[in-house]
């Protein structure tokens, strides 16, 4: 019963967020002319992309009833790595983010699984470690530039002159991973691990494989976000960026298993930020 109530709660949250979002858009498009300008819409999307990608990844970890606190740090670290390789690799450097992100995610999973440390604590530790590594990598330089045009174009070419390409990548990945979560064996098993670990084990499933994979996906998507961020900004710094909370909030409010609700919540949280900036 708890779960059913929970789902209804989640639906209510998504619907009320959608309502608030529409209300906010109507109000501010009247009150602040800059809000619905082309530039305003682009800014919202650029902020939205990493939050959405991280939220989708976090959802897989939440589905397995674990927690990943390190995605914010993976986002920073992968953007640093991507910027580091951009001058040599050119556009191909965009793949550095997802690749290293998946490895960091896998490492989270291994610390959690082989170290038998609760995931909340394990990823709290790796969160600090990844952030620290990022700082070490950029030591001596305040900012790593990656200004090559062909590299940057992956993120900030425009479709229909208002949609940055990175938004398109984010939506494709979101739809794909929602599909994976809801329609494949993988998604079902990850969710089953969260529903009843013992039952999943006794049904003959190699539980560890799936738990590691859930963390790897979380890291992978944080890495995609990090790579795109480096391309969008034309470089990266190791400064902490407050993205963990909105991403985890979007994942938690939208709930498990994943639905399109996560997109609505992520847009709401992003618009919310933008509105606060405008008020200032």
């Amino acid at each position, binding site marked *: 019963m708890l779960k059913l109530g929970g789902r209804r709660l989640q639906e209510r949250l998504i619907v009320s967020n959608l309502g608030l979002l529409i209300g906010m858009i109507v109000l501010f498009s009247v009150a602040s002319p800059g809000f619905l300008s082309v530039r305003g819409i682009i800014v919202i999307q650029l902020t939205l992309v990493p939050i959405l990608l991280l939220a989708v990844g976090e959802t897989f970890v939440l589905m397995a009833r674990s927690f990943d606190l390190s995605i914010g740090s993976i986002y920073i670290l992968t953007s640093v790595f991507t910027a580091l390789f951009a001058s040599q690799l050119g556009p191909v450097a965009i793949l550095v983010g997802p690749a290293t992100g998946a490895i960091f995610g896998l490492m989270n999973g291994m610390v959690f699984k082989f170290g038998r440390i609760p995931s909340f604590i394990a990823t709290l530790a790796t969160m600090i470690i990844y952030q620290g590594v990022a700082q070490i990598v950029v030591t001596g330089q305040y900012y790593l530039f990656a200004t090559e045009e062909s590299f940057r174009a992956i993120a900030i070419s425009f479709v229909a002159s208002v949609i940055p390409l990175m938004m398109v990548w984010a939506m494709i990945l979101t739809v794909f991973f929602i599909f994976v979560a809801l329609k494949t064996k993988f998604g079902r098993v990850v969710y089953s691990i969260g529903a009843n670990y013992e039952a999943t*084990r006794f049904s*003959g499933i190699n539980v560890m494989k799936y738990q590691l994979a859930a963390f790897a996906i979380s890291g992978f998507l944080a890495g995609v976000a990090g790579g795109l961020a480096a391309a969008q900004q034309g470089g990266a710094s190791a400064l902490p960026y407050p993205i963990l909370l909105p991403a985890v909030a979007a994942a938690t409010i939208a709930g498990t298993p994943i639905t399109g609700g996560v997109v609505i919540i992520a847009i709401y949280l992003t618009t919310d930020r933008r509105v606060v900036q405008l008020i200032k």
Partner: protein
Amino acid sequence: MASSSGEVLELTAEGIVKRFGDFVALDNVNLDLRAGEVLGVVGQNGSGKSTLMKVLIGAQKPDAGRIQLRGRPFSPKNPHDAESHGISMVYQDGALVPDLKVYQYVYLGREVTRGTILHSRGMRDKTSELLENLKIPCSSDDFIRDLSPATQRMVSIAKASLGMITGENKSDERIIILDEPTAQLSSTERSIVFDKVREWKKRVSFVIISHLLQELIEISDRMTVIRDGKNVGTLDLHEKSVSAAELHKLIMGRERRDIVVRRNASLTKVLEVELAKQGVFDVSFSLGEGEIVGFYGTIGSGVRELGMALIGSLRIDRGVLKKGGKSLGGSIAARVRMGIGYLTGDHASQLNIEWSVQRNISLSNWDKILTRFLKLAMIDSRKERQLAEEYMKLTNIAPPNPDAICMSLSGGNKQKVILARWLAKEPDILVLDNPTAGVDVGTREEFYRLLANSAASGKSFILISEDLDELSTLCSKLHLMKDGKIVRSLASAALENLGDEDIRQIIKGL
């Protein structure tokens, strides 16, 4: 004994009617409980006995009928109200809180405070007094999770009788309703709990719901049978004794069907077992194709641990496990892939309780419901539906709705969902650990029929059970275990000729 349960009526319920929509759960049901007696209530799952109990404790409002408590009209508003009148219920799953200490649990929901601060010492002392009074072998500072299942059960009964013992209750008479008090217990633990019930019934009247007819006959003074929401009758066991078979007939409304099991041991060996774990078990045996081999042993005999070792959830020290001549890998996943399954009566560790029946059946049967595209293993919802429908029909799960959430099913049906999962998987060997614990007689019969059919088609089973009747009905060979060793093996001929009583004697003599 008989005369001690006098004529004083503690509680009477007359003409209770309860409808849920068009469904009549209780149709003019009567029940009366005398002071100081144990009243057994039996019936199949869904016969209405749980609803009746809920009416008695105020968790359900009856549509008609009246209840009298010690001669006065009584209509409890809710379980709390019933409790303040001296009626409380101990639920099947015991709503135990593992992380609390015994005294915290006993006082849960009625904590004693001084101002706003918990009066722990007072509660601890009162609990110690209560435990001593009832001779329960634990301390008020023990954690619930550290107690044996039998002691846990006793503690939850103690919690229900708290008011009586400490004198906080206005009325010092007390009625305790026990719902399947022994479902997850071993036979030794059962007798410990029942000894306590016998001891306490001088002060407390008990209503006990159980599917274990034999033990209920042994402990009850009278027994009320309910079938399809109607009274079948109430038997006074002191006037006339009743056998489990007769009771079975009253509950089902028909004779017990014979289960036909092919008893001749097969020649093809499918599994050879030689397993040892220091201080737990050290056994070797083999399993033939289409054979059902039984294991009997009390807690501590290592028999349940053996079951867990067979599926790979318990590490062993040394040994070989060969299926069709091939050694088996160590993990559960590897063993399931090699055609071994494991099912226990404890469905908490087997079911995703918040999931639908369909999804629970799918959980081991991916090869039957997946389509592959671009290397993605996608779930074909049509195939998934078909699989669920096919096996729900075979196992007769009620309601026959694949989307029903498992939580809403009765205990017996939950059990059948797990069986359906494994029957669909068709493992060559299925290890069953007390598969019918807490399952009613009708469902049990169906369960046996399914196992017998499956064995006849060449599947093999290892049946670990505390239920001798179950073992002698199904098994072609029965191994008796004690202190981790097989101390005696009875072949099919012996099982056919010996009655349950003879086997009980053999076990006693071990």
